[in-house]
């Protein structure tokens, strides 16, 4: 019997992905940094480091701390700013045969709108609107914890771009489904979740905090159960596609997120351990499909059985 052809392709709004695994914002640079480790053309999408209207130096002091099964970061959105991104970086990465999703952050609704307008250009395939960076005021977290503000940002961005608009949600809220519904109603094409969880770490010998910024964002395998739960809750609440992330290290983790209701996933901190993790996760999904006789991702997305 002829082997059935497995397709890992999936659509998120107007975005067509060859496979559902992307490199998460802030952990994938601008994609180029991974050229020694994988074929960037073969991954689902590149999500850029968060871009802000003006260049940012980021937070002072130690920015990285290790935690059990994960890490804290307090980078504070260091980035070259919108103009340099458009003039110098985008021309160098738009040739990849994979979508470029630009992650944007700002301090005001107007600035989000301005960025959306400026990025409505060739080479940008979608915007991921970060309303959830826990490390800086300008990271949009004020918008990410209040449904009305989140909706306002979403509307403003949607009104200034023809690109697919993905709103990235914060886990640092009481009910993430409420936030997801608010941005869906405001016109978001998709949501991505989760951004990092606010945390801290202390050196008991020196009796000092480990991070220069005191608190930081927790990510890595330690947060996976939280992220998975949130993806599942949001999948029950909205109809738009979900991009799931938080602690994904391999294909099996990715399949869990797909089963919970994500249409695509992103690998974040685990790229630091295995710089080919995005490729390995996609291969792992394919292997899972093959061994379970599944040809199309739609047969897995949201198909977790709930016993009761």
């Amino acid at each position, binding site marked *: 019997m002829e082997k059935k052809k497995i397709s890992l392709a999936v659509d998120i709004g107007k975005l067509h992905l060859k496979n559902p695994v992307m490199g998460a914002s802030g952990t994938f640079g601008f994609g180029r940094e991974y050229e020694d480790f994988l074929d960037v053309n073969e991954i689902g999408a590149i999500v850029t480091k968060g871009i802000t209207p003006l260049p940012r130096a*980021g937070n002072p002091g130690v*920015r990285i701390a290790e935690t059990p099964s994960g890490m804290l970061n307090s980078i504070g959105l260091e980035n070259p700013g919108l103009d340099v991104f458009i003039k110098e970086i985008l021309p160098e990465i738009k040739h990849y045969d994979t979508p470029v999703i630009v992650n944007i952050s700002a301090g005001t609704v107007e600035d989000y709108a301005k960025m959306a307008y400026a990025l409505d250009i060739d080479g940008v395939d979608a915007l991921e609107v970060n309303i959830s960076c826990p490390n800086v005021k300008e990271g949009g977290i004020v918008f990410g914890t209040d449904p009305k503000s989140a909706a306002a940002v979403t509307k403003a961005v949607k009104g200034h771009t023809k690109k697919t608009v993905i709103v990235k949600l914060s886990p640092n809220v009481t009910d993430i489904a409420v936030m997801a519904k608010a941005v869906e109603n405001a016109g978001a094409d998709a949501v991505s979740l989760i951004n990092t969880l606010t945390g801290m770490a202390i050196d008991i010998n020196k009796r000092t905090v480990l991070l220069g910024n005191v608190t930081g964002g927790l990510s890595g395998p330690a947060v996976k159960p939280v992220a998975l739960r949130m993806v599942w809750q949001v999948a029950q609440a909205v109809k738009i596609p979900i991009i799931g992330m938080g602690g994904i290290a391999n294909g099996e983790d990715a399949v869990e997120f797909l089963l919970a209701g994500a249409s695509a996933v992103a690998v974040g901190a685990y790229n*630091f351990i295995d710089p080919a993790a995005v490729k390995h996760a996609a291969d792992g999904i394919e292997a899972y499909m093959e061994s379970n006789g599944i040809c199309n991702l739609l047969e897995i997305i949201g198909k977790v059985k709930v016993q009761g």
Partner: protein
Amino acid sequence: MKKFVLTGQVVNNKQISNGIYHMAVHAPQIAEAAQPGQFLHVKKPDGANFLRRPLGVADVDKSQGTVGIMYRILGKGTTEFSRMAAGDELSIVGPIGNGFVLKDGQPLIVGGGMGMAPLIYLADMLKDKKPIVLIGGRNKDEIFWQEYMKKFTDRIYVTTDDGSAGVKGFTTTLLPQLLQKNVVDDIYTCGPDIMMRGIAKIAYEYGKTCQVSLEKRMACGIGVCLGCTFPGKQSGRRRKVCTEGPVFPAEEVF
């Protein structure tokens, strides 16, 4: 420069001084590519620590295909490394970063503490020029590095904070005398920031070129997380220690 991610087999892992270890790992591609001043980002597969650990390349044997690292037990990660034995596997991303630029003039190598590790490989690469080596340590137990350096030069000077060996004081105490006494063109240094700052200042006063090797907390080691950046003084740009360094011209840092 191409980076690899691979698994190397530990050939040898032994204590060379109190709490300090040398590990040789079979990894021919890395041995072939590694330059002095570059580092490896390593992890014991399935080890307890989540992040990799940055460790300088301390020596290379291309004929055996091995690369050596020297590390001091500091916390969880290095404790775990110290328990590894021949035949165990070590996951490596590397070689990473820009190492020392080997200049044409008479070299002077200055190291303090674990900063000596990458300087051993540097001395090997500069051995035809008979580098002058200045080693600083807190006491006589911390200057065992002479054993390794004497393969590459016989001009070794030592300072200790407590005077238990060599000249009492810091490397910066002796450096001006060395510069007056010897012909020196280029200074290469690795050690605590405060030491390198002092060395850089003296180098500047005497008109010598000076390269410094920095240490920062790292997560990715490949230039994507921005955990390791600092504001470059001369360039005015933010610099990544992992991929643009760890070695920089002193003027860019201090």
